[in-house]
């Protein structure tokens, strides 16, 4: 035990010895290897066995001399045999424990992050085999980490490049298309037939989708790079939620979706209204898209303890159980929604989660939900008018407000809708 602690105490010296490839150390290693090969087999188990045999022989000799030889000779011999066996046990024991200790210390050092270290292999015993295996492991770790680091750096650079590209090179042509279509639609370049107007509206609509996508991708980059800002200011959350729901009124009417709003009085909260709009519009837009004809969407805002809670519930298609863990993942869209609606970036919920969590709130969901249980019962034969088990998204934001975050960029998706 004492020796072990000595080893630890001398750790720095050992490190130094390891680094300097002195000839004396090499000689020592060679001598040790030679002595091991000369005396015993190569396996540690052999060594232990030999030590035991050595002890056994000593005991036998002791018995032999105890019977036949005079006491003086016996004492001398037993003294010698005990000394030898003790020395042998001491030597091997120490050697073994030192090997294990050295290995442990080196592994600790590697675990602490010094992956450039290689373990020195001596001989072919089990410890050497273990050392070899560890060396392989280190090499593999080294290459993987090196790959990871350089890959991460490349990804970050690619993201930064993308932001620069997207903000100027992609948006400029998109703006040009937008304005020329406007120009034509307004009749500034001559009168249009109804059909021409219809086609141009399609161009306008598709272009708006592209703008939305570019804005969402930019937001994702800003989130990933951590460069977006959160600027809380006193905001009426209920008004914000009401306005966000109002933006989708036309779409809901088209599908005869019933919008139910339940707003409980809330104090004015410090929120970044731009970010809050992005989140609310994302959730309500999803609910509108994925709720069928004659479905119900419920938007609830209420205080719960020291938090403001926002609930967006629908009785739409719901989220498949097995895909629920993926729902906040970037670019992910559940299989059932892909079948319903081909338009969708898979970025909305990722952005919503990042925004809410980075501003100190929480976001989660429930699907199937219990919000429309009563309606389902009443509908009887035709359960869930919306067509599915439904989804409910919950958001809580502390009443004390969002956490301020300083950053050079603002998020842009949905912002001008």
């Amino acid at each position, binding site marked *: 035990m004492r020796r072990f602690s000595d080893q630890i105490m001398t750790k720095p010296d050992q490190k130094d010895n390891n680094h300097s490839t002195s000839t004396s150390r090499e000689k020592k290693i060679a001598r040790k290897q030679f002595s091991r090969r000369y005396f015993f087999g190569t396996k540690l188990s052999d060594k232990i066995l030999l030590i035991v045999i050595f002890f056994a022989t000593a005991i036998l000799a002791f018995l032999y001399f105890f019977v036949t030889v005079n006491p003086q000779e016996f004492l001398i011999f037993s003294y010698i045999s005990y000394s030898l066996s003790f020395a042998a046990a001491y030597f091997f024991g120490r050697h073994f424990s030192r090997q294990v200790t050295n290995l442990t210390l080196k592994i600790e050092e590697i675990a602490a992050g010094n992956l450039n270290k290689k373990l020195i292999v001596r001989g072919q015993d089990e410890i050497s085999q273990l050392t070899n295996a560890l060396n392989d492991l280190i090499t593999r770790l080294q290459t993987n980490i090196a790959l990871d680091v350089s890959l991460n750096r490349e990804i970050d650079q690619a993201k930064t490049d993308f932001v620069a590209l997207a903000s100027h090179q992609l948006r400029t042509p998109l703006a040009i298309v937008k304005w020329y279509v406007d120009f034509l639609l307004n009749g500034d370049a001559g009168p249009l037939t109804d059909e021409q107007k219809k086609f141009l509206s399609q161009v306008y609509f598709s272009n708006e989708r592209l703008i939305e996508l570019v804005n969402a991708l930019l937001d994702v980059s800003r989130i990933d790079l951590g460069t977006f800002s959160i600027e809380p200011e006193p905001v009426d959350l209920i008004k914000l939620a009401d306005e966000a729901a109002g933006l989708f009124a036309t779409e809901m009417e088209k599908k005869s979706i019933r919008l139910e709003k339940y707003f409980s009085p809330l104090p004015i909260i410090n929120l970044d209204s731009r970010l809050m709009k992005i989140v609310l519009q994302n959730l309500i837009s999803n609910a509108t898209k994925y709720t069928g004809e004659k479905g119900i969407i419920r938007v609830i805002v209420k205080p719960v303890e020291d938090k403001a809670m926002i609930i967006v519930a629908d009785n739409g298609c719901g989220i498949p159980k097995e895909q629920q863990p993926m729902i906040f993942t970037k670019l992910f869209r559940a299989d059932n929604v892909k079948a319903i609606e081909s338009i969708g970036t898979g970025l909305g919920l990722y952005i919503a989660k990042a925004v809410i969590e980075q501003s100190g709130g929480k976001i989660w969901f429930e699907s199937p939900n219990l919000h429309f249980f009563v309606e389902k019962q009443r509908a009887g034969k035709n359960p869930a008018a919306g067509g599915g088990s439904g989804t409910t998204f919950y958001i809580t934001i502390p009443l004390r407000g969002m956490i301020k975050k300083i950053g050079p960029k603002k998020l842009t998706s949905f*912002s001008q809708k």
Partner: protein
Amino acid sequence: MPQTRKLLIVEDEAAMLTALSEKFKKENLSVFTAVNGEEGFNAALREKPDLILLDLVMPKMDGMSMMKKLREDKWGHDAKAIFLTNMNDASLVAEAAKVGVYDFLVKTDWRLEDVVRVVQEKLAGIPEEEE
């Protein structure tokens, strides 16, 4: 009879410049154009427009530098301007406010007629110069 208001558009994208200038000509404005900050600066001093609509990212001289330079001029010190850009970085908005430009329109977010509306509103608020 109010005299024709002068509008200077500084924009390096030819297509965008055409769309804007055509649109504003139809709005009965006297439109001048420039394709970079340097040209824009000279045109501004020459024509003394009622309002300058300018892009931020341009070759030779960008919009921000042009406004800074214009602010040093006796006439340019009070010139009215609107930034029309692709970027809406918080830092840029702050910098724009520093050079006295408070309208910062992100191109993809605005329909052409809305840009016209903003320009008209801005022009309505500017008293006509005594010649």
